[in-house]
Structures are given as C-alpha cells and as structure tokens.
C-alpha cells in the first residue's frame, strides 16, 4: 500500500508541487538565513581565528575580542612571570587611516605582530614573505585591501607604498585572512612599527598572546594569568564563544535573522500543513474506501506518514541544495557572510520533520475519525 500512497502523492502534481515548493522555500529560508547568521558570527571572531594564539590576555573589563582596552606594555612581562607560561608576546590591533597616493583615505585594521617571533602572522601568503615585515616600513596587506584599493583606482602589488599617519608603508606581502566584521582591510606590521604608525598614548598594548609550557593546559594557564590584578586571560575557544555570545546578546542581528527564520517555519507550517491537510481531506473518500475494503489504521497511518515525509525529504533536499548553491556563489566574494556547519542542515531537518509530523498528524486525526461506512453516503 505504500507504493499506492506514493503514486497517489506524486501523480497529484499540483498539490505535490505546492507541498514540495512550500517545504523547499521553508528549508531554503531557514538554512540560508541561519548560515548568514553563522557567517556574521564568524566575521565577529575573525581576529581570534586569524591570530590563533592559545591564550589571550586582556584588560579585566574586556568582554569580547573586538573590544580593545589598551594596557601598559609592562603587562607582557607580568604575564611572562606567571608559572606555566612558555611564551608571551604583545599584539597591537587598532583602526588607522591609510592615505593613498591619490590623496584618498581608507580605514584599515592595523595589526602589530611581535617583532621577534611574528606570532599571529597570516598563514596564507598569496605574494611575498611574511619575514620581510622586518624590513624598513614594511607592511603585509590582505586581499580585501587589494580589492578596496583597486576600487579606488590603485593597484596594490609588492612594492606599492601608501601612508599611515604620514609615515610610509611599503607592501612586502599580500595575504588572505578571515574577513573582519566591519570589512576593513588588514594591514600587518611589526608591533614596534605599529607603535610608530599610531599616535603615542600612555597605554598602547591591545593583547598579550601567551602559550603554556608542556603539561599545562590552556585553561589552567588562563586561570593562572587571570589571578594577576587587572588582567583577564581567555583561551582561544572561550574568546571565540564570548565574542559570539556578546554579539548575540548586544546586537539586533539574532532578532532580525531569527524573525526571518521563524517566518520560514510559519510559512512552512502554513503552506505545507494546509496543503497536506487539503491533500488528505481530498483523499478522505478514498481512504474511507480503503478502510471499508479492509485497510487497517496502521496501514493508512503509514501511507499518510510516508506521503508527508516524502514531500518533506524532497523539499528539504531542494531547499538545502539551493542554500548550498547560494553559499557557494557568495563564498567566492565572501559577501554576504555565509557559514553552514553541519548543525544548520540538521536543525533545518528537525524543523522539517516537525512540520511534516504536524501536517501528517492533522491528516491522521481525520483518517482515524473516519467511519468506513461513510463510503455508502
């Protein structure tokens, strides 16, 4: 009878198409929007992922990775004095303006790496060598910078120069780095040179990056450093999630995207639920005939469930497929943000199962109440 159920479904093309379209649209909307949300959250953690240090030391009041409260440079020495610290290096991150050859300006995120070790260096160099940062006035820019400067008519290549706070910066390398939340280009240089590029203030240290000695976990090390007055040490993973949760709690992003996701669920339930209900309702006469002919309730329930989950499976496949295609297209330009971990299609699958179960349940209630004698009326 399951074969009969599928034939009844697939050959009722108008309702079948409507059901699949409804569920595909619902899946697409949820999958795409949640992936964009995940992509946005990934953007907020770009600094953490680009630098990649195991333990980050910040001012005690810092709540997330994009919030910089400058510290004194002496804090590096204090961190190094903590037992279990294998190494500790300074990191500068700040917004500066780059002045281009034609006089126009471009905001950039200046990243000053420890001069000796270049800890936190970009791992994906597309041109030049990161070690050349030690050359005079040397900077490494990311591909976003190349793109943004190109739009302003300036071709960035090795040897191109521009100014930061009236000081020359010469490009010695081009890298690829995870895009930042605000989309500013990254300009990497050494920590010492970063101090020269920025206006001098009493406190200029953004982060201290640290690593544990053998036998000490990142969590242990973070706990030990956090005992220092005025400092807070956070492991890379914790800083990642602290940042994500900060944006979830303090921005309107989850509400705006959550609204679209909820609308997707409502549209899915409304279209799929209503259409499936109509499908079952239109077939009630025939289901009653089956009942009269000797079909038991479990058989009829299996037929209705198979019909509901068939359209759910197909609609889900189309929706997630379209969302993946969208993701592939936009990932080339990295805009809008898109990140689809396995949890996203799993969540969407659970919602689709819920919608299908809900739709099937409404139909099944009708079928269960159906008197076989109704076929004679």
């Amino acid at each position, binding site marked *: 009878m399951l074969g*009969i159920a599928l034939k009844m479904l697939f050959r009722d093309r108008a309702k079948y198409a409507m059901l699949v379209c409804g569920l595909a649209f619902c899946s697409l909307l949820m999958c795409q929007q949640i992936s964009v949300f995940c992509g946005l959250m990934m953007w907020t953690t770009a600094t953490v992922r680009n630098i990649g240090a195991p333990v980050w030391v910040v001012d005690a009041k810092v709540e997330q990775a994009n919030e910089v409260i400058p510290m004194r440079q002496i804090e590096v020495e204090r961190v190094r004095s903590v037992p279990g610290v294998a190494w500790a290096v300074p990191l500068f991150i700040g917004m500066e303006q780059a002045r281009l050859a034609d006089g126009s300006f471009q905001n950039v995120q200046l990243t000053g790496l420890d001069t000796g070790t270049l800890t936190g260096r970009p791992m994906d160099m597309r041109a030049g060598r990161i070690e050349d940062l030690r050359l005079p006035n040397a900077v490494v820019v990311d591909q976003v910078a190349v793109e943004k400067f190109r739009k302003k008519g300036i071709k960035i290549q090795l040897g191109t120069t521009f100014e930061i706070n009236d000081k020359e910066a010469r490009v010695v390398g081009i890298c690829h780095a995870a895009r930042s939340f605000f989309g500013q280009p990254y300009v990497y240089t050494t920590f010492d040179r970063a101090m020269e590029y920025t206006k001098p203030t009493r406190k200029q240290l953004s982060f201290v990056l640290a690593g544990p000695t053998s036998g000490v976990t990142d969590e242990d090390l973070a706990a030990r450093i956090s005992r220092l007055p005025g400092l807070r040490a956070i492991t890379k993973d914790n800083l990642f999630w602290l940042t994500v949760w900060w944006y979830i709690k303090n921005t309107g992003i989850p509400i705006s995207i959550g609204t679209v996701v909820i609308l997707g669920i409502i549209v899915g339930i409304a279209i799929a639920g209503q259409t499936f209900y109509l499908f079952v309702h239109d077939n009630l006469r025939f289901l009653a005939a*089956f*009942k009269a002919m*000797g*079909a*038991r309730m479990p058989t009829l329930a299996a037929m209705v469930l198979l019909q509901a989950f068939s359209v759910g499976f197909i609609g889900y496949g189309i929706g997630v497929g379209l969302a993946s295609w969208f993701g592939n297209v936009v990932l080339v330009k990295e805009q809008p943000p898109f990140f689809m971990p396995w949890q996203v299609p799993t969540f969407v699958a659970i919602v689709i199962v819920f919608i299908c179960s809900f739709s099937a349940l409404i139909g099944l209630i009708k079928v269960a109440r159906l*008197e076989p*004698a109704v076929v004679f009326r």
Partner: protein
Amino acid sequence: MSNLAINVENAVKSFPAGDTRTYALKGATLDAKFGELLMIVGPSGCGKTTLLSVICGTLKCEEGRLTVFDHDLRAMKEGQITQFRCENVGFVFQQFNLIPTLTAVENASVPLILNGVSTAEATRRAGEVLEKVGIGEKRHSYPSQLSGGQQQRVAIARALAHEPRLIICDEPTASLDAATGQKTLDLLKSSALQPDRCVIVVTHDNRIYHFADRIAEMEDGRVTGIHNDPKNYHHV
C-alpha cells in the same frame, strides 16, 4: 456448508440526533443465500444502506443477530471484522470511488495488495479480472479517461479481484444511463455470481429489478417483504 450465506435477525441500529437517537434499523430480518443476487429496495431513508453497512461490518448493530458465512460478526472485535472484510467482501460503490491518480489496473489491484499479495502479482491478477469484465485494453487508463460505464467496470473488477465471497453493491447504476446500467448488472450477474458467492445490491433503480434472484423490500427500518419473483415485482 449451509446454503445460507447471511442471516440477519432483528437488527437494530440507531444514530445520535441531538439529545435523542434516530433508529435506522428497527429489527430488520433478512437472509441471503449462496449463489443468489439479492436486491434490497425501498424508499429513501428506509435503512437499506444501513443494513448493507451492518452486513459488511462497516457498522455495528446494537441488537439482534448477524451471521455472515457462519461468522458471528457482532462477537468479533474491530480488527477481526476489518480482516474479515478484507478477505471476504468486495465493494461496488455508487460513486465508483476509484482513486483518480491510479490507473485502472492499479485501482483493481488494491484489494489484492491489502490481502498481502505482492504488487507485481496483484497487478497481473487485476489485469486478468479487467480482461474478464471486458476492459482489459483500458488497463493503463486513469478514471478521468474512462466513461461512467467503464469506470463501473473497473469498480466491479476491483470488487472481484481478490475473489471475495460477498459482493456489496450500493446503487451501482445510480450514476449511469439506462443502457449502461443494464450492461453493468448483466456483467455483475455473469462475472460475480457463483455458487459459493453472494451478491447484495441496494438500489432504487426499478429498471434492473429483473436481474435479481430475490428482492427484499424495506420500509421504516424493517424488511417488510421478500419477493421471489422479481420479474413480476413492481415497487410502488
């Protein structure tokens, strides 16, 4: 084996109507024999269809005795009655009730599949029955591609496919013109009626009375008369 296929004695069936109950059967008594085509006739609302539903087990009567092929249907549980119906009863409905999205052969194979026959075997056997009722060439047509008479033939094939012992027909000619109705009854009598089988037809159509072996006349929830000479029966 007794020659009595069905025995209904003093069947009572009522339905709720607001605070009271409306009695559709008020002690109906009826016998049907193997090898006969029994017609149940009477005015609208006299309880014909209710009696038919009680006989095939789609409705349970509240009082009286009901024996179908030596099975006491009133003593059987719901699941047993469903299984009994599945194995022993074939249906021909007034509106045919053919699934519009299934072909003729797929429609006719449904009772076989319900009886556990594989789809391939059910399709083969349903095809044979469609040949038998003279519509084999339309086996792959959908109901919407068939005339009313052809649809009723498919419905008859569906009723016969699993070789049930009881064929229940509810107003089988109501949706057909006179000539097609005659052909349908002719077909029903020639293909469905066998010595080990019983056919019960509920009808208003006095043009097909002569096909019956006996006619049971109903009025106000009771069987008021049995007529053994249908050719000379004229219901007023």
